[in-house]
C-alpha cells in the first residue's frame, strides 16, 4: 500500500515537473502539442526527469550501502570523501586529457572514488572507539583534504570556476545526448537489490558475517565498487548532490528498519521523490530562473537531518 502511494506520488510529481518551465506546456493541450513543445519535452524535460529519478535512487542507495559497510548511520558519499574524490578524478582527467569525452572522465572519477573509499575504510578500521560522530568527522576531514588538492591543481590550471560548478548539483543543463552516462548506475542498483540480504548481514559486523559463512571482504569490495560507480556516473552528469545519501536511508531506517530486502525499494522511491520535489522547488522559487538543486537539497536535507539527530538521540544508545 505504502509502495503504491509512493509510486503514485512519483508519477504525479514527474508529470508536474514535465509541465513547468519557461516554455508553457499545459496539460489540457497535451494532445495537440506543436513541434516546438514536443522537442522541448523530448530533448530537455524528459531527460531531466529521468536523470532526477536515477540520481535520487542511486545516491540514496549508495548512502545506505555505505552505512551498512561502516556500521555507521552518518556515513554517506558526502561524509566519506567520495564526492570530493570523484571531483578530483574529473579534474585530473580534464587536465591530463583536455579533449576527452565524459566516459573517460567518469572512469577517472570512478578510479579515484574507489581508492578514496579504500583509504577511508582503512581509517575506519584504525579507529579504536568507533563513535557514531567521529567516523563521519574523519570522512569530512578526508574529503576536505581531497578538495584542497583539487583546488590546488585547478588554481594552477586556471579552472577553479569550472571545477566549482561540478560540485554543485544542477539538472538545468541536462539535455538529450549529454546525460545518458547516468544509466551506468542502474545495473549496480540492481546488484544491490540482488545482494540485499548479504548487505544486511554485513551490517551486523565482520564477526557475525564470518560466523554466518559470508565472505565479508568480498561483499564489502562489491559494495564499494557499486557505490563508487554510481556516485561517479551521477557526478559526471548532474554534479554533486549532497545529503541525499545521508537523510533518505536514515528516514527509511527509522520507519521501516534495516532489512534491506524489504527497505531497498522504499529507499529508492523516497530518494527519487525527494529529489523531484527539490527540483520543482528549485525551479519555481525564483521563476523563470532556477537555483541549483544542490542548494535546495542542502537546505531542506540539512533541516531534516538536524531533526533526525535530535530524534535519534532519544533511542540510540
Amino acid at each position, binding site marked *: 500500500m505504502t509502495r503504491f502511494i509512493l509510486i503514485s506520488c512519483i508519477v504525479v510529481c514527474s508529470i508536474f515537473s514535465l509541465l513547468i518551465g519557461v516554455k508553457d506546456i499545459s496539460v489540457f493541450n497535451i494532445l495537440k502539442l506543436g513541434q516546438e513543445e514536443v522537442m522541448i519535452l523530448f530533448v530537455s524535460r524528459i531527460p531531466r526527469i529521468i536523470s532526477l529519478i536515477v540520481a535520487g535512487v542511486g545516491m540514496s542507495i549508495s548512502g545506505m550501502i555505505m552505512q551498512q559497510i561502516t*556500521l555507521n548511520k552518518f556515513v554517506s558519499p558526502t561524509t566519506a570523501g567520495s564526492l570530493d574524490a570523484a571531483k578530483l578524478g574529473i579534474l585530473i582527467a580534464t587536465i591530463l586529457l583536455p579533449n576527452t569525452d565524459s566516459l573517460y572522465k567518469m572512469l577517472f572519477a570512478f578510479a579515484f572514488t574507489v581508492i578514496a573509499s579504500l583509504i577511508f575504510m582503512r581509517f575506519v578500521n584504525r579507529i579504536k572507539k568507533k563513535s557514531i560522530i567521529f567516523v563521519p568527522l574523519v570522512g569530512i576531514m578526508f574529503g576536505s583534504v581531497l578538495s584542497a588538492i583539487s583546488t590546488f591543481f585547478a588554481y594552477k590550471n586556471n579552472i577553479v570556476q569550472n571545477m566549482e560548478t561540478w560540485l554543485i548539483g544542477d539538472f538545468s543543463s541536462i539535455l538529450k545526448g549529454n546525460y545518458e552516462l547516468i544509466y551506468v548506475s542502474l545495473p549496480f542498483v540492481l546488484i544491490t537489490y540482488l545482494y540485499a540480504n548479504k548487505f544486511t548481514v554485513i551490517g*551486523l559486523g565482520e564477526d557475525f558475517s564470518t560466523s554466518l559463512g559470508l565472505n565479508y571482504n568480498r561483499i564489502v569490495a562489491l559494495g564499494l565498487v557499486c557505490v563508487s560507480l554510481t556516485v561517479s556516473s551521477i557526478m559526471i552528469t548532474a554534479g554533486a548532490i549532497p545529503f541525499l545519501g545521508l537523510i533518505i536511508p536514515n528516514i527509511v531506517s527509522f520507519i521501516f528498519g534495516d532489512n534491506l530486502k524489504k527497505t531497498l525499494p522504499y529507499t529508492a522511491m523516497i530518494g527519487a521523490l525527494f529529489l523531484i520535489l527539490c527540483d520543482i522547488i528549485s525551479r519555481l522559487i525564483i521563476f523563470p530562473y532556477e537555483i541549483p538543486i544542490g542548494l535546495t537539497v542542502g537546505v531542506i536535507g540539512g533541516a531534516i537531518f538536524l531533526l533526525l539527530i535530535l530524534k535519534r538521540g532519544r533511542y540510540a544508545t
Partner: protein
Amino acid sequence: MVSLKNISKSYGDKRILDDVSVDFPRGKITSLIGGNGTGKSTLLSIVSRLIPKDKGDVFIIDENITNLDSKELAKKLSILKQSNHSSIRLTIRELVCFGRFPYTRGKRLCNQDCRIVREAIEYMSLEEIQDSYIDELSGGQKQRAFLAMVIAQDTDYILLDEPLNNLDMKHSVQIMKILRKLAKDLNKTIIIIVHDINFASCYSDYIATVKNGKISHFGTTDEIIQTDVLKDVFDIDFEIMQVNGNKICLYFV
C-alpha cells in the same frame, strides 16, 4: 570433538596464546574460566576462524578447519562474541531469520527454515516481542535475541563469549538451563566463557582454566572446582561448599 593443537598467537611482542593444546569433548558443556586478558576470547575467536592464528591447527572431529570452506563451517560451528557494536535496526524475527543464512545463502527461507526460526524464538521465550527492533531492547533481551539467532543457525558446535554479560540473575539461569538442554537433548558441543565461577560450577561438564596464554588446568567440573586449583588460577582464596549436590564457591571476603 574440537581439538586444538599447538595454537600460538601474538600481537606484536605480546604473546596472547602460547602453544595451547586442548580437546573439548563432544556433546558437553565446557567452560573457559580465567582472569581478564588471559586469552580466552582470542582462543574462541581462533577456533571460529574470526582471527588468524600464528601457529597450530584446529580440528573439528578429524577435519582441519583451515581445509574447510567458510560456508560449510558456518553449518557446523557458530560463535557469539561479547561485544556487539552494530546498531542495525532489525526486528528479533528478522535477526533470527539471518541465523539461517548459511543454509539459504540469502535466498528465501523455506518451510523448514521458518519452523526452525519459530522454534528458536520459542526456545528463548521471545514470541511476544519478536516484532520489536533489537536496538530498542534492553541488554538482556538483546542478548537473548542474538542467542536465538545462534540457535537458529543450528550448528553442532556453539561457542559463546560471555553470554551472561548484561543479563540479570533470572535470565542468566534461564540461559544456562537452555544451554544444558541443548547439550543434553540435541547433543550440541558448547564452549562458553563465563566469569561467574558458580555458573561454571553448576552447569558445565568440563572446565578449562586459562592463565598466561596457556590452558593451566583441564578436567571435569569436580576436578577443577578445588580450592588449590582455583587459588592457582585466580590468586585469591576460595571456600567451597556443597549445596544440593553442587559446589558453590565463596570468594567475596
